[in-house]
C-alpha cells in the first residue's frame, strides 16, 4: 500500500482531478455521477470533457475542478488522475502533479517504466472485481466505470447517500439496474476504504454554496433561450460542437411546445442539407415573420457567409449561433478556441458589420440567446451568438435560470394590417424615424405591405437601383443602424480594483481564468482592472475603459489576436496601449497561464512571483 499524502498539504474543497478513459465505454455516466455528487454536496465545481473526434476507441478525459472559492477555470494541474486507459498511462502519469495520486486498475500490473516516485499510485483491481461480480461483457464494462466512482467516493470523502439517491433517480424507470449500480459503487468504495488511508488530503467537505445553482452546459442553456424567446423555426446541419444545441431545442420543444392531445407542434425544425440551406431557411423564416435561428460552428459560418450578407443588406432578422471550435478549416472539431471573432464581425463580402453577443458561461448563453432574437428583430439584421466548445459542451455551475413572465419580446418595427391600411404608401427602406431603422411588413398581411426584397441595389423605397446616390443612401443608413446597436448590446462587464494601474481585457469563456488571474496578480501585489467585452459593435464604455489604462492586456484564445484587432479598428484606441495574451492550443484557458504571461510582460522574474511558475502552463500555451 503506497503512502497517501506524500508531500501533499490539506486541500479540502480545492483541488482538481481527471478521469482518463476510452470513448464509447460509457464512462460519461460515471463521470457525471461524480460531478453531480460533488455539486449536491454544495461544493462549487466544474467539469470539462476532453474528447477525440471519433466515436469509439480513442482516449478521452473528464476533468473536474473543485473550488470552494468558486473558481471555475480549467486548471492544467491535476492532484489526482484516474487512469482507466492503458494507452494513455504514460501521459496520465506524467500529468499528475508532484505529490499527487494516480488511481488505476491493478487487475494487470503497471509497467515499471511508467512509475514515478514523487506521486502516489493507488491500484484498485476494478476489472477483476467486476468480472467476479457481474456477468456479460457489456455490464462489466459499464460497472467498472461505476466502481471507480465508488473508489473516488471513498478517497475524496463523497457523501454515499447523495450518490445512492442519484442512482435511484437515474434508474427510476428501470429499478432493477439500481442494485447492480449500488453494488459497483460499493466494490470500489470498500476496496479503497480498506486499502488506502481515506480520505486523501484532497477531499470534499459539505458546503452550502450550490443550492441556488444548477449544472448546465451552454448549448442546453442557449437552446432554452431560443425556446423562451419564442423561436419557432430552427434550421441546422449537424456539426460539432453545436449539435447538442439543436438536440436541446428539439427536446425542450417536444416537451413544451407540443399539444398533448393533438400532438401538434408549435415549432418547425429543419435538418437542412447543408449550412447554406440552414442559413437560407432561417432567412426565409425571418422574412416571413418567425423567430428563426441556426446553430453552427466555424465551417458553417464560412459556408453561410453569402446568406449572411443577404440578410444584412436586405435587413432580415436572423440569429446565428456560432459554437466555436479550433480552426482554421476542419481544425480540431472537439477542441475549443475563439477563432471566429473576426470572421463573424464582418462576415460576407462587401461592406458589412454584424451585431454579435459573447456569453462567458451558460447563464449568459441563455440570456443572450433571448436577447439575440430581440436585437435581430429590433435591428432587422443577422445577430450572432458567439460561444465556444468550452461553454457549449462542458458542465458549468451557474445560478438557476429564472424567467420573468412579464417579458415581452421586442418584435421591432413591424407594421400590422391596420397600420398598413392607414398609411398612404409603405416604403420598406425609408428612415422614417431618423434612427436608421426602417419599418417592416410581413408577407400575407396586407396588399399595401407588399414589396420586393432583394440583395441587389435598392432604394429607400425598396425599388431596384443602380444609382450611386440611391445606393449610398441605403448603405449609409445601414451603417448608422448597426452602429447604433453599440449601446443596445450587453455592456462590458467591468471590475475595478483599488490602485490598479493596468487592465486585463477579455471575452467569452476566458472570463473565469482571467478573473482568477486578476486575484492572483493582486495577491502578488499587482492589482489590475478587468473588462470583459460582451457585445459588438462595442459599447462606448469599451473605448473609455481602454483609454483609461496605459496598459491593456487583451486575453483571448486565438493565434491572431482577433479581439485586439477589432478593438483597435473599431475604437481607434492607440495600439501601443494594447498587449496580447494568447492561448490557442484548444484547451480552456487557465488562470496561471494568464497571470504568468502578464508577469512576464511586466518583467517580473519567476522569483518575484508568489504562485506557479510559467513552466506549468497548459499544453500549447504560447505568448
Amino acid at each position: 500500500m503506497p503512502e497517501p499524502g506524500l508531500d501533499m498539504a490539506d486541500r479540502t474543497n480545492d483541488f482538481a482531478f481527471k478521469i482518463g478513459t476510452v470513448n464509447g465505454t460509457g464512462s460519461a455516466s460515471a463521470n457525471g455521477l461524480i460531478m453531480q455528487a460533488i455539486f449536491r454536496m454544495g461544493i462549487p465545481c466544474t467539469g470539462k470533457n476532453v474528447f477525440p473526434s471519433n466515436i469509439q476507441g480513442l482516449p478521452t478525459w473528464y476533468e473536474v475542478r473543485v473550488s470552494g472559492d468558486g473558481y471555475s477555470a480549467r486548471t492544467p494541474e491535476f492532484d489526482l488522475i484516474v487512469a482507466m486507459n492503458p494507452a494513455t498511462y504514460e501521459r496520465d502519469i506524467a500529468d499528475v502533479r508532484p505529490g499527487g495520486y494516480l488511481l488505476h486498475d491493478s487487475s494487470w500490473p503497471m509497467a515499471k517504466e511508467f512509475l514515478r516516485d514523487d506521486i502516489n499510485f493507488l491500484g484498485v483491481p476494478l476489472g477483476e472485481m467486476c468480472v467476479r461480480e457481474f456477468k456479460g461483457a457489456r455490464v462489466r464494462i459499464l460497472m467498472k466505470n461505476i466502481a471507480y466512482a465508488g473508489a473516488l467516493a471513498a478517497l475524496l470523502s463523497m457523501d454515499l447517500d447523495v450518490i445512492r439517491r442519484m442512482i435511484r433517480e437515474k434508474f427510476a424507470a428501470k429499478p432493477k439496474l439500481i442494485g447492480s449500480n449500488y453494488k459497483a459503487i460499493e466494490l470500489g468504495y470498500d476496496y479503497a476504504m480498506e486499502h488506502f488511508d481515506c480520505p486523501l488530503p484532497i477531499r470534499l467537505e459539505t458546503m452550502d454554496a450550490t443550492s441556488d445553482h444548477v449544472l448546465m452546459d451552454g448549448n442546453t442553456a442557449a437552446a432554452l433561450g431560443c425556446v423562451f424567446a419564442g423561436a419557432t423555426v430552427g434550421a441546422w446541419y449537424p456539426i460539432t460542437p453545436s449539435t447538442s444545441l439543436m438536440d436541446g431545442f428539439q427536446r425542450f420543444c417536444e416537451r413544451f411546445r407540443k399539444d398533448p392531445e393533438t400532438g401538434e407542434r408549435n415549432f418547425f425544425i429543419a435538418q437542412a442539407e447543408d449550412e447554406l440551406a440552414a442559413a437560407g431557411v432561417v432567412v426565409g423564416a425571418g422574412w416571413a415573420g418567425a423567430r428563426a435561428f441556426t446553430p453552427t460552428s466555424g465551417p458553417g459560418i464560412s459556408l453561410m457567409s453569402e446568406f449572411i450578407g443577404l440578410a444584412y443588406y436586405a435587413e432580415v432578422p436572423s440569429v446565428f449561433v456560432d459554437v466555436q471550435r479550433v480552426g482554421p478549416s476542419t481544425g480540431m472539431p472537439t477542441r475549443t478556441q475563439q477563432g471566429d471573432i473576426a470572421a463573424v464581425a464582418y462576415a460576407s463580402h462587401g461592406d458589412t458589420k454584424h451585431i454579435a453577443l459573447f456569453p462567458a458561461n451558460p447563464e449568459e448563453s441563455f440570456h443572450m440567446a433571448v436577447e439575440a432574437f430581440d436585437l435581430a428583430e429590433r435591428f432587422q439584421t443577422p445577430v450572432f451568438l458567439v460561444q465556444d466548445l468550452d461553454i457549449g459542451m462542458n458542465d458549468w455551475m451557474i445560478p438557476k435560470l429564472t424567467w420573468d413572465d412579464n417579458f415581452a419580446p421586442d418584435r421591432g418595427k413591424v407594421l400590422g394590417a391596420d397600420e398598413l391600411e392607414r398609411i398612404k404608401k409603405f416604403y420598406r427602406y425609408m428612415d422614417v424615424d431618423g434612427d436608421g431603422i426602417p419599418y417592416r411588413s410581413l408577407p400575407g398581411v396586407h396588399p399595401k405591405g407588399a414589396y420586393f426584397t432583394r440583395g441587389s441595389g435598392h432604394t429607400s423605397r425598396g425599388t431596384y437601383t443602380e444609382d450611386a446616390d440611391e445606393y449610398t443612401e441605403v448603405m449609409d443608413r445601414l451603417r448608422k443602424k448597426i452602429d447604433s446597436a453599440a449601446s443596445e448590446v450587453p455592456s462590458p462587464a467591468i471590475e475595478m480594483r483599488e490602485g490598479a494601474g493596468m487592465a486585463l481585457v477579455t471575452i467569452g469563456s476566458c472570463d473565469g481564468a482571467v478573473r482568477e488571474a486578476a486575484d492572483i496578480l493582486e495577491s502578488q501585489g499587482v492589482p489590475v482592472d478587468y473588462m470583459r467585452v460582451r457585445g459588438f459593435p462595442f459599447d462606448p464604455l469599451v473605448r473609455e475603459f481602454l483609454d483609461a489604462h496605459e496598459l491593456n492586456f487583451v486575453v483571448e484564445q486565438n493565434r491572431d489576436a482577433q479581439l485586439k484587432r477589432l478593438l483597435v479598428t473599431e475604437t481607434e484606441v492607440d495600439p501601443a496601449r494594447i498587449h496580447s495574451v494568447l492561448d490557442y492550443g484548444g484547451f480552456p484557458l487557465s488562470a496561471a497561464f494568464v497571470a504568468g504571461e502578464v508577469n512576464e510582460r511586466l518583467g517580473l522574474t519567476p522569483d518575484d512571483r508568489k504562485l506557479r511558475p510559467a513552466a506549468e502552463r497548459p499544453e500549447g500555451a504560447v505568448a
Partner: protein
Amino acid sequence: MTYIPKPAVRHPGLGANELGLHMRDYEGTISTLCAGCGHDSVTAAVIQAFYELSIPPHRIAKMSGIGCSAKTPAYFVEQAHGFNGVHGRMPALATGANAANRDLYYIGISGDGDSLSIGLGQFCHAIRRNVNMLYVLENNGVYGLTKGQFSASADIGSRSKRGVPNKSEPIDPVALALTLGATFVARGFSGDKQQLIPLLKAGLMHKGFAFIDVISPCVTFNDHVGSTKSYLYTRHHGHELVPVDFVPIRSEISAPSNNGGRTSITMHDGSMVRFRKVPEDYDPTDRLSAYEHYRSLQNRGEVVTGLLYLDPSGEDMHDDNATTSTPLSEMSHEDLCPGSEQMDALMEEFR
C-alpha cells in the same frame, strides 16, 4: 425605363374574377428582359393563372434566386411579397418562409443555372422535403444573365443537334424530379399558354412540391456548341461580324394553339424542337411508368409536355412535422413561451 416597347400583357376582354380583381391587378412592374424572351411568356401565363384562381395577391409569396428568370417575379402580382434571394438558394428561402407561414401561396421561379448547377442540391432537397410550393424552372439551356454560357441542361431545345457522341448527359430536371419522388411533375413550353396555364393552376393547387419544367427559349443566347453562328463563336474569334452587344429584337415563339399530341417548333436559331403532349388517357399516378414513358419518348428525340406525375395523397412537409395549423409567424408569445413555472421545475432537473 425600358426603351424597347413590350407587348402589354393586358386582356381587356376578361372581366373581374371572384375577388372582383382584374387581370391588371395581377401584373407587376414592366419587364426588363429582352424582347421576345420566353420568360415573359411564362410571366403572362402566371398572371393569368393567379387571376383565374382568384388568389388574393397579398397571400402570394414570390420567391426566386438570381438570373433573368429570377427577375420575373417582379413582373407579376405587384401586391404580392417577393424575395429575390441569392443565386441557386431559393428553395431554402422558400422552405423557411413556408415553415414560418404555411398559409401563403408560394411560387418559386428559377432558371436552369439557378436550379441545376449552383442550386442543384437545394432543388433536390426541396423535392425530398416536399415543400408546399409551385416551383417553376424557366429552362433555356443557358445562363442568360451572364451572357450565354451553357447550363447543365444545355441540350434542351437542341436534342437534334447533338454532335459529339458519348458526352455526358445533360441534367434533365424532369427525370430528376421523378427519380427523387416529387409529388407533382409537369413540363410546359413558354410558347404554349393554353397548356401552361392549367398546369400552373394545378401546381398552385397541389399540396406539396409541384414542379413544372418550362422550356423557355432565350432569344439572345440561343446558340449551340459548334455552331459557327453562335454568340460564343463570334465572341471568341478575333474579327467580329456582328457587334457583340447587339441583341436583335425578336418576337416570342408560340405554339399553334390547338395543336394535337405532337408539334414541331422552330426556335430562334432555326433549330427544331419536337414537343409531344402526354396522351389523353395517360395515367399520371404511377411514378415508374411515368419515368419510362418520359424516357422512351425522350430517346426518340421528343420533348414530352403535360402533367407527368401526380401523387394525390396531399401531404407536405408540415404534415411530416405535425406542425400546428396556425402559421408559426402568427403565434403569440404566450403560446410559445413555457413561462416561469416550467422554468423553475426544469431547473430542478439540472441539479
